[in-house]
Structures are given as structure tokens and as C-alpha cells.
């Protein structure tokens, strides 16, 4: 298996998996396997799926330099640490909403210490479910700005995000992308509303009103923010400019209040941000939250 430890950009290799080691392997192997700085960029010019798969040990696993990775010349660089403690330390320092998170309860047993050369994965899970509830569920798909969207379709969400990027910057193709989002999930209210906005500015008033009506038809059970978003365009389309401006101020104030409330309660916008299938454009940090150096020797 070729292992790249060279910093720089690596093109995808056909038929190969790319496995990025993290901080736990870094500590376990005494830096034989490095915690690599990695960031996956989408250079295709198209929307594409990223399905991250994380492989972590059990909370109680003690991460201690493996005997085969240390010697008199190369002593252990890191003291042993319980995985759960390390993960919590990382989360607290990286995410504001985790700052006061209590330590997870251990299972009351000490793990068997690994034997020389043993390298077992004690627990793993696929933190992803395609079955998404609508509304205030455990798992919400979000837009580019981390705002929850009432759709259960990842494809619809991706087309919506793409359409909104194009619509915001006045690049062509937004209407078609909203159409694809609606085709993937006819119940996706904000995609109908986005299409309405595009049609209106193109001067297609009748079609714009029909698209906004479609948004309202499927608006039962929407979040307050989404309902208010649609309500704003309803006022604009009705020519009620001053009422629309007032509604906009109310919309923004409510968003700010919800955000402040979450921060005060130290709650994340969603129960677990990592559950979200995401477009991997943001820099990926290691579990220590620091930009990492790959090559030390």
C-alpha cells in the first residue's frame, strides 16, 4: 500500500481509497503514521457527494504508544490518554457549543491493554443515515450557511445549495438547478420559493406566483425561519413593499434571537453537526484542532 507522507496536493488515484490518518494513529504509532493535514477540494466544477467515514476507538480505549513503535532511541513522544478524554478536549477547544460539555460516562470497565503489534479497531460506526425526518428531527440537512432545510433528500439539498449560489451571484443556471431540487423533492418549500424569485426577476410574473404558491402549498410543518422566508416573498410579490421591509427586519431579529438563545444554552444548531453529509470544502482539522505538519522526518 503506498502511503503518501509528502505535503502537497495529491490527485485522486483511480480505484484507490484515500485514508487520512488522524491524531489517534499519530499518538498510537509515535508518529510513524502521521496525522496528515488534509483538505478535500472539489475542483470538478460540479456538485458532488462526500461521504466521510470516521473510524474511532471506544471511549475508554487508552491511546498509548504501541510497543513496536518505540525504542530506546525513539521513546514515546506522548503520554497515554483515554480516547474519550482526548476527543472531549478537542471538541471543547474547537467548538464553542461544546465548551461546557460534560465528560461522557465511561462503561465502567478498563479496556484490555493492547498487546505488542496489536492494532485493533474497537468500535466504529457509520455516522450517516439516509433516513431523515422532516422538521425538528434529530438530523437536519442544511444549506451552505448551516441553516436547517426541510427536505429529506440529499440530492434536492445539493441542487438547492448550487441553485442558491448561482442565484445570489447572478450566474446562469439557478432556475434549472431549483427545478432539479423540486424534482428530487416536490415537498421542498424553499426550492419552490427560490425558483419563484428567479422567475420574478426574469419578469415571468405568472410563473413566479405559481412557484410561490407551490412553496406555500407544502409549507406545513416548516421551521419558523423557512415560513418567514416564504412570507417575505409573499409580501414582495403582492407589492406590499413597506410590509415586506418590516417582515424582513422581524425575520432577521428572530434569526439573531435564535442564535443568541442557542449560544446562551450552548446548544449546537443541530444535535450533532458531524452527522451532516457535507461538501468537503472547509479545511479539515485534526482532532487537536490545529493545522498540522505532515512531515517531521
Amino acid at each position, binding site marked *: 500500500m503506498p502511503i503518501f507522507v509528502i505535503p502537497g496536493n495529491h490527485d485522486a488515484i483511480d480505484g484507490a481509497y484515500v485514508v487520512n490518518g488522524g491524531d489517534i494513529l499519530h499518538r498510537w504509532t509515535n508518529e510513524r503514521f502521521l496525522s496528515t493535514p488534509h483538505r478535500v477540494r472539489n475542483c470538478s466544477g460540479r456538485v458532488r457527494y462526500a461521504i466521510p467515514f470516521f473510524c474511532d476507538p471506544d471511549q475508554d480505549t487508552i491511546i498509548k504508544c504501541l510497543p513496536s513503535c518505540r525504542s530506546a532511541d525513539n521513546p514515546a513522544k506522548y503520554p497515554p490518554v483515554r480516547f474519550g478524554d482526548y476527543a472531549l478536549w478537542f471538541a471543547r477547544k474547537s467548538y464553542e457549543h461544546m465548551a461546557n460539555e460534560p465528560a461522557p460516562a465511561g462503561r465502567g470497565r478498563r479496556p484490555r491493554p493492547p498487546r505488542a503489534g496489536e492494532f485493533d479497531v474497537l468500535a466504529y460506526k457509520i455516522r450517516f443515515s439516509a433516513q431523515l425526518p422532516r422538521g425538528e428531527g434529530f438530523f437536519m440537512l442544511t444549506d*451552505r450557511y448551516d441553516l436547517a432545510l426541510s427536505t429529506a433528500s440529499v440530492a434536492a439539498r445539493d441542487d438547492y445549495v448550487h441553485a442558491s449560489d448561482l442565484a445570489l*451571484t*447572478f*450566474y446562469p443556471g439557478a432556475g434549472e438547478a431549483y427545478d432539479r431540487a423540486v424534482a428530487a423533492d416536490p415537498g421542498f418549500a424553499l426550492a419552490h420559493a427560490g425558483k419563484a424569485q428567479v422567475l420574478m426577476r*426574469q*419578469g415571468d410574473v405568472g410563473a413566479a406566483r405559481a412557484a410561490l404558491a407551490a412553496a406555500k402549498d407544502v409549507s406545513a410543518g416548516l421551521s419558523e425561519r423557512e415560513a418567514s422566508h416564504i412570507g417575505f416573498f409573499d409580501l414582495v410579490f403582492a*407589492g406590499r413593499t*413597506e410590509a415586506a421591509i418590516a417582515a424582513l427586519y422581524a425575520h432577521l431579529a428572530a434569526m439573531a434571537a435564535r442564535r443568541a438563545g442557542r449560544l446562551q444554552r450552548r446548544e449546537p444548531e443541530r444535535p450533532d453537526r458531524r452527522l451532516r453529509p457535507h461538501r468537503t470544502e472547509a479545511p479539515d482539522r485534526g482532532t487537536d484542532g490545529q493545522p498540522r505538519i505532515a512531515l517531521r522526518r
Partner: protein
Amino acid sequence: MIFWFTSYHAMALSEDGQLGAARAKIERSVAANPNNAHGAHGFAHVCYESGEPDTARAYLSSWLASYPRDGFFYGHLSWHLSLCEIQAGNWAEALRLYRDAIALDRHSGGPQQKISDGAAFLWRSELADHPRDAAAGRGLYDYANRALPRPGNGLADLHVILAQAVIRDDAALGSRARQMEELAREGCYPSGSYLPALGRGFAAFERGDFSVAIEALAPLAGGNERIGGSRAQHDLIEFTL
């Protein structure tokens, strides 16, 4: 998202005359996302307001070169570029831009942009002593009646009025003025009596009744905050004077 908000904030600052703050903001916006037509638009406005047509000209020419021809703002930004060319004395290039991207059948925007940019270009070209393109004026007038039969957006309505004045359709001007006043009474037309008065001024100008035109237009010049838009659009009122 910050790139989008800052592009609009910069526009608002520039319309309010806070050019230094507008310049800093639009530069941040464009740096954060160069592929944003609102950013390019804001930059063009800030340059126009700051009296830097050459900067705007260089920027817009290179920006439009990589912007899709069917992008919603291709027509409107071509109009901005044409203003810079007119200011630089390049009438031939301005006319080329008009024929390529501003004329009604070439413009990539919606009805409001098509009418505004087309009518403003034709009016400015006449103010600069170029001969009237009667067929283009008639085309805009017909399109405006069809696509924007009722008043709504003040800035677009300004240009609808201009198209109507050029055709000397006093009946249409009068009925649109009444519609605006009615909307204003219902609280749905914030600019109130501004555009009806403007329509009377343009109509007087068209029939050569300059003292009436000046009497109508002079009090309106500088009052553009009532209908939105920027000096790039409203200067045509002052230039008419």
C-alpha cells in the same frame, strides 16, 4: 455569505455618498468572491460615484470577459461599461456595447433592466447629440407597455416614463401617473408624486417646452433617494437640465 452582504452594503454606502467606506467594503466583497455579479456591479457604481470611469472601464471589461453571456447582469454591466466609454469619449465602443448587449433583443436581464438600460442609453446618446434611434425607442415603448403594464418599481418606472415621453404618448404618461398616485394613496408607492412630476418634465422637454421642463425637473434633481437607484441612473435627470 459575507461577500454578498458587503456588495450590497457598499452599494448603499455609495448611494449615500460615503464613498471611502463604500470603496473599502466593495473591495472586501470582490476579494472574498470575485465571481459575483453584484460585487462587479458595486465596484462599477463606486467608481462611477468617485469619478473614476477609467478604473471601472478596465475592471468591467476584464470582468465581463469571463462572465457568461446569458448571466442576468451581462446586459446591465455592459450598460455600466458603456457609460464609462461615453465618458472616455469612445462613442463607437459605447454603441458597439449597446448593439451587442444593451439593445432590447440582446439584453440578458429581466424587463426592468432591459427597459431601464435601453431607455437610459438612448436618452443619454441623444443628450450627447447623437441622432435619435426612433425604431429602438418605439420598440422599448411597446415592450414597456407589454412587460410592465402597471407601475411597481420606481426605478424601472422612471425609464418607462422616459420611453413614453420619447414617443410623446401623453395619454399613457397621464394614466401611469394616476396609477402611481393611486398606489401612493394605498401606501404602496413610496416615491409618491416624484415620478408623475418627472413624467411631466420629460414630456415638456420632448415638445421643446424647456421652461416648463426646467420648472418640473429642477426640484426633482438630487431627490433620487425617493426611488432608489444611483447617480449612474439619476444623472440623466441632471444631464437633461
